[in-house]
């Protein structure tokens, strides 16, 4: 065998080289790929890895008249004076290039090509895809009759140059079937087949193209491709892989395609919909695109490590999806092949690095990772508006009451009682009891206090306040040193493992912070002292909250007076309760840093917001009785003011009622909001997060700080832009890549493979276009059309090129085995979704509902991580809606070559594998479809089995069966009928496959045998192959 292979290869290469001799070597086609693949690793864009200070990726350097040990590197026209040529010909291991330790080699043919190229003058061009597409004029062809539109002139020109001819047009039935699957992912209607078969004119054809593009199934077909690009998944991925709520994004994609949203707008909304003026919910949901990467929850993970991965994934997805660039290469070092530096990578990274997100989602709660959008109906929004207005009104009323002249207060002032008791104490720990567990009883501020180990919490039995309940926590505090982080007290289940839901007081780099949190960091309020607290001395601290859910309603009191604080977060919009860990705990939290060797004393929890007077009192234990005992005439203004607040809070009936009214108004808002479904979206942080160049791409090795910018190879970039700036740059008509990359993928969808066969890589190491001018022409026309996807598909579908038969001539298979010239259409098995959707449709089982939550058909129960399957409708929706579990996707879809969707993926593989046959033969979904279709046929045709089979063949292949074919099918039917007649129990078993009810009035053996005919046809080439 090897002999044949070798012989064959030599033949091919011989042709190649002699062809090269005849015609000039083409730099882009013949030379650049060799230089890139074999030389750039050491002599390319990566400065750190560059050898001999030589670059072969830049014309100025490669062709410069510099001498290298006495020779030019490349001397145009003088191969024998060129160092490069000498070295690639050399046998001397010290001299030879590429060197042996690179494990790279040049073939004889490649050496010859390089030599010829230098001899012919070393013509040089910049990398094709980084140059803006030119307006191309369609070339002239000899055959004037074949072309339908400009596409065909480009295609035919090359076919003619190769001395070949295009295939004849596909038969009407084949063509309409191909067209319907390509555009809607479903077979054509019988009416469409009939109309075109009766009158196979371009007019009728184009009308059907329009119908298909207007069909709502078009959006679903397009979405199933785009979801691979968006790495869509209904679960978070990584190990634990919980469900997440993202399907509204999928529906946004379907609707966008159906509405033919211009591609530039489609891109802009996904990248930066949140930044558009008056952004709608729908535009914000589009940005979920950037959050569809895997997310981590595994206990013990370092949050920043994974947050960095998320941003990197967004950056890579952006590169692959829109630009066809392999940006991942320059995360750790300058790109080895393309002119992108590591710094430029982090400048792009910076665009995606500015949302208030956590590195881990919450293990103990189901909170949606921030930033989020609440999914609300218009009615709900209206109710929320009303609730907000009510709160504002009640707050105003409260202030009015507080500021109004109050004769009752004056009366109270006269006959007030002196007390040192503070009302509302829920619990108090004085630590006078020596029972401290692992913690130590030590000298405290007042009598005994406690010294904490940091690993052992002191638990209370109170503290489960909602965000609408005012409360106060006060304590004496003494830290042994300036701690980077320590938990003073908290009311939560855990730190990152529950996204800190609850409230807490922390030491952060010596500062004191207090927070109320639904999901840290994006859904919380936090204030922090500006000063650090001196270690080894006692401080009195109070956390005081007014129930407003606002940062300015959250205060820290230090030694009885308000501390100087700054607001760190001010965006709490959901509940802080319900996560477990319902009571306050002091000094330790699950997987957080405890308050090691910290001292605490006189810990008090109050179920109300203490007034200034009381806050002074909990510090000095004397202010309250002293002030209360002071005669009215001796009170200074401040004291009087403080007494008034004290009075209002505790004794004034109207004020007390108003506080209650306000609380219930806030609770009303909570009722509307706390249950609202949220979805992860993009939302800029107010203060931009700094981005650093990460050494070797590692999260913990930041080096220089970088701002946002687009790569310099594409011209000037405005620094410090945001994602919207980036979206404008990407969708600018001047961007050389965006339109080309997209047009190429649409071409791939319609013709079976791209003009650039590496749709994921338009860089130096990618394939060069088979028809560069056609790609340019399509791209520029596409942009001129207003980025109109439907128009582009129609243009392609109408071309003679698209409409060719897939029958190749023997010659073509030899001279153009990959069908680069498109002398015929490509044949390939339908994608996983279409195979299943077709079976569901023809059997009448398809539930043709659009959108909504993902569904769980039979196969999800068979996946590596099985989940319970659904029932009823869930079993029969289009495959696009099948629940996608990232770490264990639907197993039949995976067997049938669906994309893995771990990362952005722009092309599916096509394999030929016996496992395909096994699932198509035996998967209950297909068997059930077969028996149901069999049943329908027996019901419709009774004993006229021949007619039933003819009908079945037509439904499953879109054409009429030939006699010989029908004869084979008939034999099969008779054989299966004989079998089921002999074993009637088996027929019953066969007919009970799947949930769909069976018609018990029909003869079981006939229905089963007819079902097996369908099983056969569902495996027949013309049913499963797009041809």
């Amino acid at each position, binding site marked *: 065998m090897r002999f044949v292979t070798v012989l064959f290869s030599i033949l091919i290469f011989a042709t190649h080289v002699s062809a090269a001799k005849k015609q000039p070597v083409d730099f882009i086609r013949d030379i650049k790929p060799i230089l890139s693949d074999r030389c750039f690793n050491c002599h390319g864009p990566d400065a750190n890895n560059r050898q001999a200070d030589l670059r072969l990726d830049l014309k100025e350097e490669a062709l410069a008249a510099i001498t290298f040990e006495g020779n030019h590197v490349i001397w145009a026209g003088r191969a024998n004076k060129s160092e490069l040529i000498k070295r690639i010909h050399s046998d001397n291991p010290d001299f030879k290039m590429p060197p042996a330790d690179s494990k790279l080699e040049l073939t004889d043919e490649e050496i010859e090509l390089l030599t010829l190229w230098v001899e012919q003058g070393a013509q040089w061009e910049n990398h094709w895809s980084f140059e803006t597409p030119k307006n191309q004029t369609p070339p002239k062809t000899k055959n004037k009759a074949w072309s339908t539109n400009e596409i065909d002139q480009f295609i035919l020109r090359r076919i003619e140059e190769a001395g070949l001819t295009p295939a004849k047009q596909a038969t009407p039935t084949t063509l309409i079937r191909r067209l319907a699957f390509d555009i809607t992912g479903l077979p054509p209607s019988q009416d469409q087949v009939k109309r075109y078969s009766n009158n196979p004119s371009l007019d009728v054809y184009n009308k059907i193209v329009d119908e298909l593009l207007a069909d709502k199934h078009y959006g679903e077909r397009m979405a199933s491709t785009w979801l691979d690009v968006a790495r869509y998944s209904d679960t978070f991925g990584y190990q634990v892989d919980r469900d997440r709520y993202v399907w509204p994004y999928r529906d946004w994609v379907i609707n966008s395609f159906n509405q033919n949203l211009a591609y530039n707008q489609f891109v802009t909304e996904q990248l930066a919909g949140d930044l558009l003026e008056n952004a709608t919910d729908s535009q914000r949901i589009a940005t979920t695109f950037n959050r569809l990467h895997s997310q981590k929850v595994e206990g013990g993970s370092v949050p920043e490590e994974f947050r960095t991965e998320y941003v990197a994934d967004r950056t890579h997805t952006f590169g692959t999806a829109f630009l066809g660039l392999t940006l991942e290469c320059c995360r750790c070092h300058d790109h080895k092949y393309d002119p992108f530096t590591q710094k430029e990578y982090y400048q792009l990274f910076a665009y995606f690095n500015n949302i208030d997100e956590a590195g881990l989602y919450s293990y103990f709660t189901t909170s949606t990772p921030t930033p989020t959008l609440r999914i609300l109906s218009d009615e709900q929004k209206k109710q929320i508006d009303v609730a907000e207005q009510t709160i504002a009104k009640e707050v105003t009323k409260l202030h009015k009451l507080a500021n109004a002249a109050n004769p009752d207060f004056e009366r109270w002032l006269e006959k007030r009682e002196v007390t040192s008791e503070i009302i509302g104490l829920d619990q108090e720990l004085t630590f006078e009891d020596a029972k401290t567990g692992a913690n130590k009883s030590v000298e405290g501020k007042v009598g005994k206090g406690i010294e904490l180990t940091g690993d052992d919490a002191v638990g209370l039995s109170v503290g489960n306040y909602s965000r609408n309940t005012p409360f106060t926590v006060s304590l004496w505090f003494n830290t042994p040193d300036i701690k980077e982080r320590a938990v003073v007290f908290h009311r939560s289940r855990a730190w990152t493992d529950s996204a800190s839901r609850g409230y807490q007081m922390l030491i952060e780099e010596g500062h004191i912070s207090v927070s109320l949190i639904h999901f840290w960091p994006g859904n919380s309020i936090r204030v922090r002292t500006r000063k650090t607290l001196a270690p080894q001395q006692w401080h009195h601290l109070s956390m005081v909250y007014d129930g407003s859910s606002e940062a300015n309603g959250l205060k820290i009191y230090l030694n009885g007076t308000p501390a100087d604080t700054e607001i760190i977060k001010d965006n709490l919009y959901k509940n802080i309760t319900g996560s477990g860990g319902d009571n306050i705990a002091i000094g330790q939290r699950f997987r957080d840093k405890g308050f090691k060797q910290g001292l605490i004393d006189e810990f008090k929890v109050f179920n109300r917001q203490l007034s200034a007077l009381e806050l002074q009192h909990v510090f000095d234990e004397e202010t309250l009785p002293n002030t209360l005992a002071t005669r009215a005439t001796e009170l200074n203004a401040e004291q009087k003011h403080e007494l008034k607040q004290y009075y209002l809070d505790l004794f004034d009936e109207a004020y007390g009622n108003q506080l209650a009214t306000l609380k219930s108004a806030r609770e009303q808002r909570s009722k509307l909001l706390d249950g609202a479904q949220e979805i992860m979206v993009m939302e800029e942080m107010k203060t931009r997060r700094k981005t650093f160049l990460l050494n070797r791409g590692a999260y913990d090795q930041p080096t220089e700080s970088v701002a946002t910018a687009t790569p310099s190879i594409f011209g000037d970039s405005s620094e410090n832009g945001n994602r919207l700036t980036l979206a404008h740059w990407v969708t600018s008509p001047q961007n050389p890549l965006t339109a080309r990359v997209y047009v190429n993928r649409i071409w791939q969808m319609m013709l079976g493979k791209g003009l650039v066969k590496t749709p994921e890589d338009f860089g130096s190491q990618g394939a060069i276009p088979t028809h560069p001018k056609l790609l340019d022409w399509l791209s520029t026309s596409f942009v001129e059309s207003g980025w109109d996807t439907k128009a582009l598909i129609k243009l392609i579908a109408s071309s003679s090129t698209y409409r060719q038969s897939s029958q190749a001539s023997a010659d073509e298979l030899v001279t153009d085995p990959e069908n680069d010239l498109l002398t015929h259409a490509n044949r390939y098995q339908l994608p996983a979704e279409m195979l299943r959707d077709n079976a569901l449709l023809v059997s009448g089982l398809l539930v043709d509902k659009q959108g909504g939550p993902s569904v769980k058909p039979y196969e999800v129960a068979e996946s590596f991580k099985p989940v319970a399957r659904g029932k009823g409708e869930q079993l029969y929706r289009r495959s696009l809606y099948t629940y996608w579990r990232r*770490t264990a996707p639907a197993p039949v879809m995976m067997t049938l070559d669906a994309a893995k969707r771990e990362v952005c993926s722009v092309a599916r593989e096509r394999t030929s594998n016996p496992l395909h046959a096994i699932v198509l033969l035996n998967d209950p979904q297909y068997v059930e479809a077969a028996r149901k279709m069999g049943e329908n046929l027996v019901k419709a045709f009774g004993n006229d089995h021949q007619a039933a089979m003819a009908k079945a063949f037509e439904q499953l292949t879109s054409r009429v069966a030939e006699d010989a074919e029908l004869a084979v099918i008939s034999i099969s039917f008779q054989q299966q009928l004989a079998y089921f007649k002999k074993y009637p129990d088996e027929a019953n078993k066969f007919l009970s496959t799947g949930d769909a009810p069976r018609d018990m009035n029909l003869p079981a053996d006939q229905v089963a045998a007819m079902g097996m005919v369908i*099983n056969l046809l569902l495996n027949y080439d013309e049913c499963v192959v797009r041809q």
Partner: protein
Amino acid sequence: MNATTSQQCTGYDSPFGLSRRKVLQSFGMGLGSIALTQMECARMLHARDGILKEVHHQPKAKRVIYLFQSGGPSQLDLFDYRPELEKVHGQQLPDEIRKGQRLTAMSGNQASLPMVKSPFKYSQSGESGQWISEVLPNIANIADDICIVRSMHTEAINHGPAVTHMQTGSQFPGRPSMGAWLDYGLGTENDDLPAFVVLVTKNKGGQPLLTRLWGSGFLPSRFQGTRFRSGQDPVLYLSNPQGLSAEARRQMLDRLKDLHELKLQKQSHPDLESRIAQYELAFRMQQSIPEVTNTADEPEHTFKLYGEAAKNPGSYSANCLLARRLAERGVRFIQLYHPGWDQHGGLVGGLRNQAKETDQASAALVTDLKQRGLLDDTLIIWGGEFGRTNYCQGKLNGENFGRDHHPRCFSLWMAGGGIKGGVTHGETDPLGYNIANNGVHVHDFHATILHLLGIDHERLTYKYQGRRFRLTDVHGEVVSNIIR
């Protein structure tokens, strides 16, 4: 059939008129085949994709059985005997030992890190006198056949990244697994079975495993591992639908073939030829796979050797036995997973239980292969994704203590396939925290495995996104000291 068409693929092998083996290979059953679409045919012609036409040097192993112990088995309680820990039991981990290493966020914030001795006794086993813990008596019996590597190390500190690193050479998802690389490089020796089979112990809790651990990453999906399930269908939907006999299926397939051939008479399509062969192969797999997975034909002494549990399909013992049957039939890479080695707490009981589930069958597999003369060219690997700390996670009280994840050192053993038996390689410091000498990084481990199979790890590459990738990334040194 059109003559030219068949020549078209003769560059590689026509599905017809050639050995069944070649045909099988074409369908992803084996060596990276040669799928038969026009595109693929052409790709094969420019055979730069790195599929090895021949191995780089004389291989010592032909196949691998990897007994993956998932969760991070505690090396200090199994293979890495550190008596010094008895002296420092209960004392704080010294800072000069920890050297500021990042700990997991599980114990990283613990205020106290007391070191803890192994609760188990160690003794020297076999003529080689290798130290093995009392919980592994059967593995102790094969001490002279195995090489214990005590100096493995990784960067990963959590299961997901660490297992992914061991299986794919990278902590992050997306790279092909080791079995996929071997399938891609070497192909299969059996026509009717996949080249890379995965067996997971059923009904085990512990850290979840993911399909990507045996995935093909960026390699074509035909190289991904096929997981045999423990139920009726080892391969998804392998059985005929209920009510359909094998004969009825055969008749239906014959008619399908007739129908396809009618089409071929009119037009030649290489891919249609391959489709016909694909259905024939599917039918054969319906026989060959149950044949290998059904162990009813094994004599009673087999079950004595592997343990009664081997009669329970899906148990670790049954999977070890199945691994031997697959190895006998030439399956290239057999990957077992046994989860549950994640003893953050309750280590004494937990570890004993894990050992009990795996000790006898692991040793039996080595013994059995040796008796059958298959050990010489079958490489067996036993090990997890990282080690466990010498200090206690949580509170040190009684037997309820646990150990946290530890990347800096862990132990595994290998046997057969060119590995020296009775050898301990590498050493950790007296406290079992850092490696003292002869460290073996995950990449070195991979380089060594490939070397044993005759592959230069730097030369088995696949070009993806413009770059040549390999299992060992840009690292890896063959550990020659442990090779016979």
